[in-house]
């Protein structure tokens, strides 16, 4: 490998090392510490000045107590499980709505596409928080939606959407839709339409041609879109705390409570480490699976 190439590759690796691995190790270290009433609020802290004995003392004070605690209190397992469920369902709905969007844009006349894409991206120019607050104005008990439905006489009592899990789903689907549409559009746009004609020439119905050509070839985009939605949705904090009720249990909210309300940084760090593992393991498995498939195809 040439030096130039090595240098080029080292850039993303340095980035990952400095901005992902090092912070992760810090969080991991805090998760092995104990709560203390001090600045910072945990013990032990690493005293590099004391030399080797300081490091040894620091090392011996670390333990897995916080991780054991996570398994003892049912709250955390329920919160992880409920987050997985909410994130998975929300991703499914985003896909359900996002795919037709992407398909529609990819099949629109060439000169329309930039404007249509712009319409997808445009909401990003508004602050995320403002968009969530706008949603509150629409779905709250005396919001636009209920006022409209009551005005046309479709309902007599307002629909209770605000402060429920349904509101959280609406919030996630709405805010993450572009992350689903854009990667799917990118794969659909490159799709060779002659493949569809070939499939139909070879006896496929329109529907089965759509399934075995369009859907099949857009799989990388669908997978990328699903990950882009699922991963942030799993750790989402703002949406459940603003739109969800006190019964909406998500790990992002628990993490916030541990960190800010309980000031138990070590436990909050342990929750974060587990969350990362929950996310990383399926991603690694999926990548390995893909790699194996690619090698088989060679």
């Amino acid at each position: 490998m040439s030096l130039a190439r090595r240098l080029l590759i080292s850039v993303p690796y340095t980035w990952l090392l400095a901005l992902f691995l090092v912070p992760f190790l810090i969080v991991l270290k805090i998760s092995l510490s104990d709560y203390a009433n001090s600045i910072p609020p945990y013990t032990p802290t690493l005293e590099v000045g004391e030399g080797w004995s300081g490091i040894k003392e620091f090392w011996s004070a670390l333990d897995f107590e916080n991780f054991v605690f996570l398994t003892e209190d049912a709250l955390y397992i329920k919160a992880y499980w409920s987050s997985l469920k909410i994130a998975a369902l929300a991703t499914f709905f985003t896909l359900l709505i996002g795919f037709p969007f992407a398909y529609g844009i990819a099949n629109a006349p060439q000169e329309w596409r930039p404007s249509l894409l712009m319409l997808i991206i445009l909401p990003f120019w508004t602050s995320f928080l403002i968009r969530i607050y706008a949603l509150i104005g629409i779905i709250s008990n005396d919001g636009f939606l209920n006022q409209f439905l009551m005005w046309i006489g479709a309902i007599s009592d307002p629909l209770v959407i605000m402060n429920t899990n349904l509101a959280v789903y609406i919030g996630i689907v709405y805010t993450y839709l572009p992350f689903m549409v854009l990667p799917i559009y990118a794969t659909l746009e490159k799709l060779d339409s002659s493949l569809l004609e070939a499939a139909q020439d070879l006896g496929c119905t329109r529907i089965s041609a759509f399934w075995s050509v369009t859907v099949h070839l857009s799989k990388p985009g669908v997978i990328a879109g699903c990950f882009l939605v699922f991963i942030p949705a799993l750790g989402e904090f703002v949406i459940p705390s603003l739109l969800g009720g006190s019964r909406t249990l998500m790990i992002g909210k628990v993490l916030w409570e541990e960190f800010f309300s309980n000031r138990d940084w070590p436990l909050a760090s342990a929750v974060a480490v587990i969350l990362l593992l929950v996310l990383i393991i399926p991603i690694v498995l999926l990548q390995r699976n893909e790699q194996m498939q690619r090698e088989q195809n060679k």
Partner: protein
Amino acid sequence: MKLLTTLSTIALCALSQAASAEEVRIYNWSDYIDEDLLEQFEEETGIEIIYDVFDSNEVLETKMLAGSSGYDLVVPTGDFLQRQITAGAFQQLDLDQLPNHSNLWDVIESRTAQYDPDNSYSINYMWGTTGIGVNVNRVTEVLGEDAPIGSLDLIFNPDNMEKLAECGVYFLDAPTEIIPAALAYLGEEPDTQDPDVLALAEPVLTAVAPYVAKYNSSEYINALANGDICVAFGWSGDVLQARDRAYEADNGVEIAYNAPSEGALMWFDQMAIPADAPNPEAAHKFLNFIMDAENMAAASNYVYYANGNLASQEFLLEDVIGDPAIYPDETTLGNLYTATPYEPRVQRVVTRMWTRIKSGT
């Protein structure tokens, strides 16, 4: 290129200007000051105020214990202040820079000495009680004329709460205030460190949790004033501000505050200067400014909380100094209890219980 140069020149100018103006960064509770006072301070001293707000002691403590908060003046409540002093979060006040210190009220100082011995780290800003705010008409509509609006029975009896849920109930999101109240309701010692006694509070709070629309420590002022909710378990002055806002809006909402007859928590919000404050001199100037009798009276007249400043009392409005909900009479005073900070081990029991109660798991 020319545009770029112009832009960077503008940016540089803005930066240098920001650096030259003196600043004091204050972190106080939401809805807790008359903003005219901030302007007045800026005019008198030429120091610019950066004013941020919080609505929970826990969030403030997280920032204090993380260190380098960047704030020059913060306002923790007594029991939190005490813990943060032990953690080394604050610096001692320099009384030479605080000539108005003589205005303070010895009665309150003797009480705050429980948290800050000798009052060497803090001065009292406001004090008050934690109790029940009700929308009188709605509550009597739901529970009848003899609704126990002055008793914890209103909010801790599931039969009452089930009916009140339809017109809306908010609780403070503050375990250190709600759990002692539940213990007072049971006739137990509210200020206990005993985990077995503390555990008695959990079934009381869990039983009414399904009927609490929200645990939040700032939204209830507006919600009460607008008539969105009919009961709030909150802080005295906040409820009285809601009463005032409803009165000004003339929307027919009548709000009343009562310190519960079973006993109410008396708390003290203390102004203190973080150990690593960037501009402690300016913080002292602000402390001295707010300890001025007329300024402190203006603050109390605006937020409806009692203060720890004896000299300010002659400038207080009659509906502040004369209101027993703000300046309690002797009988109510005898019925108030104070809280001491939990030890770390007990703290974990309490916060864990609180998370369980709120999330319903």
